[in-house]
Each structure stands twice: as C-alpha cells, then as structure tokens.
C-alpha cells in the first residue's frame, strides 16, 4: 500500500447563506442569489477539486462543539434534514452522505495515542452539523465522496487560545499520521469564517446585497492582515498571531480548524490560493487552499 497523503487543504467558510443563494434541490428555501464573490470562488475551487484525485474529505467544524474531548463521526451513512437553529429561514437542507468510518477510527486512535481525549460518535440519529454540510456542498455539490467530520473541542473558552493551538496542532499531526498509514488521498476542510461579529438584524430579503458589508473596519483590517500572511506562505506567523486575531475579531478560528489543518499539513511555507473574500451578515469569509504538490498550485486571485 502506498503512503497516504493530503492533496489539498481548504479554508471553507460555512455561512448557510451561500447554499441558500445557490438554490440546490436539497435546500427548501428559495432565493434570488447573493454573495456571488464567495459562491463563484467556491465554484472555481470545486472545479479544481474535480481535477484532483482524492478519496475522502475530512472536515473540522466549529458547529459540532464538544467539551469532553474531540469526537469523530462513526456511522457509515447519515440521511436526514439539517435546519440551522440560527438561520432556519434560509437553511433547511436534506442530506444523504457517506462517512469513511475506517479512516475516522484511525484518526481517532492516532489522536488518542497522542494523548488527546477522543470519542467515536456511533449514534445513528445524530444530525450532521450545518457547517459540515455547507462547506461540503460548496466544494463537492455532487456529494460523491465520503466525508469525516471532526468536532471542535472548546479549549479556547475552557483554557486559552494558546491551549487550543497546542491541542489542535497535536490533533492535526495525529490525523496526518493516520492518513499516511491509510494509503488514502485526503482533502482537509477547515470550515469557518475569519472575523465573526454578526449583525443582529436581518434584511427582509436576506440576499439584499445592498445591505451586506463587513461589521466594522477593524474586522476587515484584521482579516486582510491574516490573508496577507496566507498569500505570503507565512503560516507559522499566522498561527502565532492567532490568539490576538481571535480575540480582536471574535473570530471563528477560536474553534481550532485552521490550526488543526496547518498542523496536519506541516505548517506550509508556500502561498495559499485565494478564491474569494466577502462578508456575510457582517462576518469575514475567505476561501483559501493550500496545495502541497507544487505543480498543482496556481495563482487564483
């Protein structure tokens, strides 16, 4: 068996608005569009993924929040409806997805061997979170690859951003070990926004783009500072400023997704591909990808 590898890692924000704007058959509400900068960026990333050979998508989501360790999906198939508890008016999505339980168990064991608290989620009634569904739908709308979801352990709140970073890096390294031993080709997905301050009101028409903008200029400046590091391939520095970034922008990076992915990918020193940046209900959302194989990298934006 050949050595498994990570073929791409993506920062893939999951505001349900982008699925709502796409009007897929699976989602009940109907829109007139909106958030095209993000959606078109996702379309381009999805097209790139169609040219890459991979076996499974592994998603780290902040919307499966666990306090007792890190949990991994452990049921082969989930078929249900996901209703966003915050935006139920725009996201009621019927999903039917497969899970690579073998790799999920291997990652769970590797993380446990590394000293982390872990648990497999075996309850077939469990509803897969809308963060996973949104990111996966936008990256692979055909849903023709199995996925794995990893929960977000709430270290930032319970301890500190520094503790979260140490544990997320360890989790990433463990996942990489399991992937390499599996022989599989894997796409990693860090499913979250950057700055994460929301507006607390909503337009009568949620997709009214004349009302959409970043919550405040500070959030924008911080988002741009981080994206600039992405572009320069300075991910060590990006992780180093993560506690400050997270605190200043109440960023969704607090869940550990990007740090986990960087830990798994060995802290890339090459430029990320930037596919788009746009605000959604005030939050800052960047689609970016890190591609380990040099001849597969491109300058997108």
């Amino acid at each position: 068996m050949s050595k498994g590898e990570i073929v791409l890692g993506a920062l893939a924000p999951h505001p349900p608005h982008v699925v709502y704007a796409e009007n897929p058959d699976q989602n009940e509400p109907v829109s007139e569009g909106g958030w095209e900068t993000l959606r078109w960026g996702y379309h381009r990333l999805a097209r790139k993924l169609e040219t890459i050979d991979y076996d499974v998508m592994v998603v780290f989501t902040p919307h499966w929040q666990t306090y007792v360790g890190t949990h991994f999906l452990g049921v082969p198939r989930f078929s249900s409806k996901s209703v966003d508890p915050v935006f139920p008016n725009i996201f009621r999505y019927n999903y039917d997805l497969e899970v690579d339980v073998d790799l999920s168990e291997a990652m769970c064991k590797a993380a446990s061997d590394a000293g982390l608290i872990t648990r497999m989620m075996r309850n077939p009634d469990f509803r897969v979170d809308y963060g996973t569904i949104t990111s996966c739908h936008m990256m692979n709308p055909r849903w023709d690859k199995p996925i794995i979801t990893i929960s977000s352990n709430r270290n930032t709140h319970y301890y500190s951003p520094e503790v979260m970073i140490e544990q997320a890096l360890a989790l990433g390294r463990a996942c990489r070990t399991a992937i390499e031993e599996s022989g599989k080709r894997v796409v990693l997905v860090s499913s979250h926004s950057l700055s994460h301050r929301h507006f607390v009101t909503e337009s009568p028409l949620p997709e009214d783009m004349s009302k959409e903008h970043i919550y405040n200029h500070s959030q924008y400046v911080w988002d741009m500072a981080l994206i600039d590091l992405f572009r320069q391939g300075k991910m060590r520095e990006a992780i180093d400023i993560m506690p400050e970034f997270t605190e200043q922008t109440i960023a969704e990076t607090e869940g550990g997704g990007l740090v986990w992915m960087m830990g798994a990918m060995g802290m890339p020193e090459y430029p990320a591909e930037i596919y788009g940046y746009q605000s959604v209900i005030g939050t800052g959302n960047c689609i970016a990808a890190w591609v380990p194989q040099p001849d597969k990298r491109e300058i997108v934006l």
Partner: protein
Amino acid sequence: MDHDIIQFGLYVPPHPHPLLSPGASEGYQRLRDAFDTCRERIENSDADLIIVYSTTWPSIIGHQFQANPNSEWVHVDDDFHYLGSMPYSFTMDSVFAEACVEKAKERGLQARTVNYDAFPIDTGSITALSLLNPENRIPATIVSSNMYANRSETIVLGKAIRDALTEEKRKAVVVVVSSLSNRMFTEPIDPSKDRIHSQKDDDWNRKILEFFEDGRLEDLSQLSREIHGQIRVQKVVAYKPAWWMASTMGQHNNYEGEVLSYEALNGSGGAVIQLTPSVGSIGDKEFDEDDVEYYRGDRNVLDQGGV
C-alpha cells in the same frame, strides 16, 4: 393585579443525564426526582402555559420564539450522544409566541417566531419539557438566548414576555434552563463519582442557592456579572438567566424559594429550584425591601421601635 400570571418559576439544568441516565449516579437520580416533583406541581397548578428560556439555544438575529404547534424530531446531544437519542413531540403555543414577538418589537427588540419542520430544539429545552410536561398537558413556547444580548436587552426581553402574559391573561410557569457553574470535566468520568469541578465553583453555587432559597431573585439578578466572572466559562458575553427570570417574574425579592436538588452534572452545577411569587414578604429581608412598583411612603421603622 397581575401577580397570578406567574404561577411559579423553575430553574433547571440543561444536561441530558436526568432524562437519559438517571440511574447512573445517585445525584442524577435526585435531580430526576426533583424534576418529577416539579412536574407534579405544574400538574396541580392553574398554569395554562410553560415558557422556557434556554441557554442552550443561542440566537443571533434578535430573539427567537418556538412556534411550531407540533415540534417533533429525534435529537442527539453533541457531547453525550452515547447516552442515547432524545425523541420529542412538543405542543407549542404559536399564538402566544406571536404575542411575545409583537410585544418584543413594541419594546424595540428584534424578534421572530420559528415554525419549521425538523427545527433542532436544543438539549436543555428537550430535557426540561420531556420531564416537566411529558404528556403535553400544557402548551409551551421556548425563547432563545441571544449570544450578543447583555443586561438591558435581556431584561427588556423578559418584560416583553410579561407584557404578553398580561395582555393574553395567561397563567404561566416560567422555566429557566441553565447550569449554575458551567465548567465541566474535559475528560470522561465515572458518573457515580461525579462532583462539582472545583471547590470555588461549589462555594459560589451554594451561595447562589442561599439567595434562591431566600427568594432573592432581584438580588441574584444584580449579581449576574459577578457570577459570570467567577464561575462561568466565558462562552457568551454574560450570565443572563437571572436577568431574564427576574424581569419575567417581577424584579423584586418577594418570592418563596425552594432548592429541590443540587448536584454535579459532569462537573457543572445542576440545580432544580422553585421560586413562587409571594405577597407577604415585603420588608422582611432588608429594611428597604418595599414595593418597587408603587411607593407607599416611609414605614417609620424607628418610631415603631422595631429595628
């Protein structure tokens, strides 16, 4: 007088253990017994409505009220999925939920009802309603906890719900779903050896319980920020349940309090507490605990020689 719009208030924990695994520890069973006692008391009351304020239903777009007349699904907790599934079928009072939204808007709040098939009702609300109102004898509504709301917004929310109760001439049991200290153990534990995470958390919890037992709801409301700083993991901006409970039930200390149970739930402080509005306790806690709705003048305590 509108004092009978609130039959009584309950403060209950959000964790699923009393519903799914009461036999796993003596403490969980005592919490379950306390829930059962409260269920009987609701059945024996004149209540025609249950209002649940759940700290495990966060909202962003203002305040959401559950209004699906028959909310039905099978829920699984994010952390405690191995304890089992939580099927539910709840009767919601959609008319009252709409009234709450109307009153909230009149007081300047952003609010809306949610009425969608498969809407994910949260673990805390499911636990509370399954144990307190298992046969759906009384319709309910659930109100979310806005993650950005702080003191004034939360208090105004409670007042808006009180407005709706008064106008609709309803008799409600108010249920707050929240831990006291909310720090859980971050490693798996033996449930039979569950305990409060730290001595400090336990000390603060017991002090809070003293206030509840004395019926000092408004005093607890005033202490919310201190409680948040001392024993709450900083997941949200503030400890809001006492603000909401006080403004919904009445911002004073004239309650009869009863702590039915206080136990650890994976390290957090879980308590089942009842507060019943009282008409006779004005002035018997502090010398200036007079009616805060209508000023009735100086009571001349010195002249009466009763200091």
